[in-house]
C-alpha cells in the first residue's frame, strides 16, 4: 500500500514530447520545427562565439569562486540587464526607481513576479485578481500564474486566424471590458507563438486604455534583439510604457539572445514610482526567492554581466545576435518565396510580416498531423513552426510538404 498509489500519470509537456518523438524518428529527411531554440544553417545548436570567449575568461580566472550569490542575484548582472531592457539612458534608471531580481530564466522571472503580485498587488490577497494572457500565448504562462495562486486567468483576443494578424479591435475591446486593476501579460516583442507584434501606433492605443483603466503591465521579454536584430527596436514597447509613467514588471530571458538556454539566465526588471516603493517591493521579492530557490545560479549571470559590461564584448554580442536574427529573416523570406513559387493556396505574407523565432503558419491540426506522420516534419499542433529549424538544405522539402498538406488535407 503506497501513499502515492493514487498519483496519476501526468501528460508530458507537449513541446518536449515533440522533440522526444523527433529524436526517435529514424527517417533521414526528418525536420524539427518544434522547440524554440536557435539552429545554424547546418541544423546545429550554436554557442555564441562571444559566449565561448567569456566562458574561457571565467574558467581561467582563478580568483573567482563558487560562493553563494546574494538572494536577489549578481548586482552587475541585474543592473546591466535592466539597462538592456530600458535603455542605457533610461530616465527611470536615473531616478533610481528601477530594480531587478536575477531569476532562473524567463520562467523564473515570471514566477517571482507572479508570486509577488498575488501577495501584494492590490491588497494582500490577489487570488481573485484577473490575469489576462493573449489568445494564444506561450503554453507555460497559464501554469505559472495558476501555480502562483491566481484563480481567474482569462484570454484576451490577440490572433486573428482569418486575417492571420493581430486582432487589435478584439484586443482593445478586452482591455476595455477588463475589470480595472486586472493584470495583463504582454509579449514585449516576437510574440510566442504567433510572431505577430502590435505596431508602435497600436502599442500606443493599448497603453492608453491600460493607463485609463489602471491595468497592470507585466511584460514577457524573451527575444530582445532576436526579433529585429536590434536591441533598442525590440525594446520599444517596454520603454514606451515606462515613458508613459507605468509601474511595470519585465521578465527578461537570456536563453535565446545569448544562447544560454541551459544556464537559466533571467532577470525580473521592476519599475516603480520611486526608490522607496522599489525597495519595499524588492525586499518582499527577496522573501519569495528565499523559499523558492534561496539564491540564483552564478555561471550564466557572470557570463552575461561580463559581456554587457565590457564594450568590445558587448559589441561582439550584438553582432552575434544580429547573425541569428538575420538567418531567421532569410529563412522567412525564402519560405515565402518557395510557397508562392509552388502556387500554394492562401496568402503567405504573414511569414515575412511575423517576427522572431516563430511563425503561426495557419495550418490546421489535420494538416499538422499529416506533416508529422507522413513527412516527418515536427511542429506544434497549433501550426507553430520554429523558423530556426529551417535550413537551406531542408527548406525545399518543407515548402513542398506544406504545399502537399494544404492541397490534400482539409
Amino acid at each position, binding site marked *: 500500500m*503506497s*501513499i502515492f498509489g493514487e*498519483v496519476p*500519470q*501526468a501528460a508530458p509537456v507537449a513541446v518536449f514530447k515533440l522533440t522526444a518523438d523527433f529524436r526517435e524518428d529514424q527517417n533521414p529527411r526528418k525536420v524539427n520545427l518544434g522547440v524554440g531554440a536557435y539552429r545554424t544553417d547546418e541544423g546545429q545548436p550554436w554557442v555564441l562565439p562571444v559566449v565561448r570567449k567569456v566562458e574561457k575568461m571565467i574558467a581561467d580566472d582563478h580568483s573567482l569562486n563558487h560562493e553563494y*550569490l546574494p538572494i536577489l542575484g549578481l548586482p552587475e548582472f541585474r543592473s546591466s540587464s535592466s539597462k538592456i531592457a530600458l535603455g542605457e539612458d533610461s530616465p527611470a534608471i536615473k531616478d533610481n526607481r528601477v530594480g531587478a531580481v536575477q531569476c*532562473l530564466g524567463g*520562467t523564473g522571472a515570471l514566477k517571482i513576479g507572479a508570486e509577488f503580485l498575488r501577495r501584494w498587488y492590490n*491588497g494582500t490577497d490577489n487570488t481573485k485578481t484577473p490575469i489576462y494572457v493573449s489568445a494564444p500565448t506561450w503554453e507555460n504562462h497559464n501554469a505559472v500564474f*495558476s501555480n502562483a495562486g491566481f484563480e481567474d486567468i482569462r484570454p484576451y483576443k490577440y490572433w486573428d486566424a482569418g486575417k492571420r494578424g493581430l486582432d487589435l479591435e478584439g484586443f482593445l475591446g478586452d482591455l476595455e471590458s477588463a475589470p480595472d486593476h486586472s493584470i495583463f501579460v504582454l509579449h514585449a516583442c516576437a510574440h510566442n507563438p504567433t510572431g505577430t507584434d502590435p505596431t508602435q501606433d497600436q502599442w500606443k492605443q493599448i497603453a492608453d486604455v491600460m493607463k485609463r483603466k489602471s491595468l497592470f503591465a507585466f511584460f514577457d521579454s524573451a527575444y530582445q534583439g532576436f526579433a529585429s536584430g536590434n536591441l533598442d527596436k525590440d525594446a520599444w514597447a517596454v520603454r514606451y510604457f515606462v515613458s508613459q509613467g507605468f509601474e511595470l514588471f519585465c521578465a527578461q530571458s537570456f536563453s535565446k539572445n545569448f544562447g544560454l538556454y541551459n544556464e537559466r539566465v533571467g532577470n525580473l526588471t521592476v519599475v516603480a514610482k520611486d526608490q522607496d516603493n522599489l525597495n519595499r517591493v524588492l525586499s518582499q521579492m527577496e522573501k519569495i526567492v528565499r523559499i523558492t530557490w534561496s539564491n540564483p545560479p552564478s555561471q550564466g549571470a557572470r557570463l552575461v554581466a561580463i559581456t554587457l559590461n565590457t564594450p568590445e564584448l558587448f559589441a561582439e554580442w550584438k553582432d552575434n545576435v544580429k547573425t541569428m536574427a538575420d538567418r531567421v529573416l532569410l529563412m522567412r523570406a525564402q519560405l515565402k518565396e518557395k510557397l508562392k513559387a509552388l502556387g500554394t493556396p492562401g496568402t503567405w505574407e504573414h511569414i515575412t510580416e511575423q517576427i522572431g523565432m516563430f511563425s503561426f503558419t495557419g495550418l490546421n491540426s489535420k494538416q499538422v498531423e499529416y506533416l508529422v506522420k507522413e513527412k516527418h516534419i515536427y511542429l506544434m499542433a497549433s501550426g507553430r513552426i520554429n523558423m530556426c529549424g529551417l535550413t537551406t538544405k531542408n527548406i525545399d522539402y518543407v515548402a513542398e510538404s506544406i504545399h502537399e498538406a494544404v492541397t490534400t488535407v482539409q
Partner: protein
Amino acid sequence: MALLKTSKFIPSVGSLRPFLATLPIRASSWWTEVQMGPPDPILGVTEAYKRDTNSKKMNLGVGAYRDDSGKPFVLSCVRKAEALISSKMLDKEYLPIGGLGDFNKACAELALGPDSEVLKSKRSITVQTISGTGSLRIGANFLSRFHTVARDVYLPKPSWGNHTPIFRDAGMQLKAYRYYDPATCGFDFTGALDDISTIPEHSVIVLHACAHNPTGVDPRPEQWKELSAVIKKRKLLVFFDMAYQGFASGDIDRDAWAVRYFIEQGHNVLLSQSFAKNMGLYGERVGGFTVVCADAEEAKRVESQLKILIRPIYSNPPMNGARIASTILSTPELRATWLEEVKDMANRIIKMREMLVTNLKKEGSTHNWQHVIDQIGMFCFTGLKPEQVERLTKEFSVYMTKDGRISVAGVTSGNVGYLAHAIHQVTK
C-alpha cells in the same frame, strides 16, 4: 490600497478597498501598501560584520566552508572537472525538466549506495533541483498536492530557519518534535521518542540525515534504529534533508547511514540532497530530490508529476553545477580526489572544534565544553545565551546568530585563540 482614481466596486475582487481622491499619476504607486520585509537574520549578521572595522573581527554566521586562512575554498576536483568540461565544447541546449540524467543517477547512487535494492529495481525517481532549497520546495509542493491524507509536517526543534517558510508557503502545516536538549547541548532522545510516538499517522516527519543544522547534534546509530521503529509504527512519511553528506564525518557512506538504514527498514522516503557544501558548489545551485516508491511504475507516475510541478517555476534546471558534480562522481580519479578533499574539510572542522575546547580550558574556563567536540558538521550550538552573544559581537567583534550557533568553518588556527578568549570573557 492606492488607486489611481476613484473606481466602482469590483465584485470579482473579494475585499473592499478604501478609495483615494484622484491623484496625478506620478504621485501614487501600486506598492504603497507593501511592507518592508524583515532583514534575513543570517544575512544581517554578515552585513554587520562587513561594516565592522575591528581587525580581529570574526564572521561565524555564514554557513559556507572556509580554509585555514579564512578564505573560500574551491576544491581541486572541481577545477579539474571544469577544465575537462570546457575542453568538450558542449552546447547549451535546455536540459530536460528533470535535469541532467547522468547527474540524477550519480546523485541517487551517492545517497543510496551503489548496491541499493531501490536503484536496482528502479523504484525511485531523482530529479535535479536548485540545490537543497529547491529540492525541499519541490518536495513540499509535491506533498501539498499529493499527500492529501495529512497536512502536518513535523520538524525537529530547532531546525534550519528556512524549513518552516518553505513548507508553509507550499500549504503544509508546521509542527515540531523535541530534538535539542539545552541542558546537555545534546540530543533529547527520550523527548524525541515521546513526541514522535504521538504524531498522528501519515504525517510527514523531517529528519536531518547528518550534521543537524543548526545544532550539530546527530542521533547515534542505536538511536536512529529506535527512531525508525517508532516512525514505522506511527506510519509516518519520512522526508530526509541531507545537505552535508561527506562533510559531517568525512565519510560519505557513514554520513548516509541513516538514510540507507531507513530505506532498508521499509520506509519509502523522500530525500533532499545538496552539493553546496560537500563540493563547494554553493552558487551553482546543485541538488537532487528523490522519491522512493513502491515500484518502477509508481516511480514513473511520480516523475511525471514532479515535472508538472517544476515547469511553472523555472522550466528546467541549470547545467553548469550539475555537469561538474556529475563529472566528479563518475570519473574515478576525480571522485577519489573529491573524497579526499571532503575528508580534509571535515577534518579541519573537527580539529577546530578540538582546538576551541583546548583553548577554552587554557583560558581557565570551568564550563563543560564537551558538546563542542561531540557535535558534528559545520555548525555548533555553543549554548551561549542571547546576552552573551550580544557581548561577543559588541565587545569582541565576533559575529554569530542570536541562538548561539557558530559556523565552525569560520574558525581558523589563527583566530581560534581569540575566539576562546572572547567566549571565556562572556561566560566566566
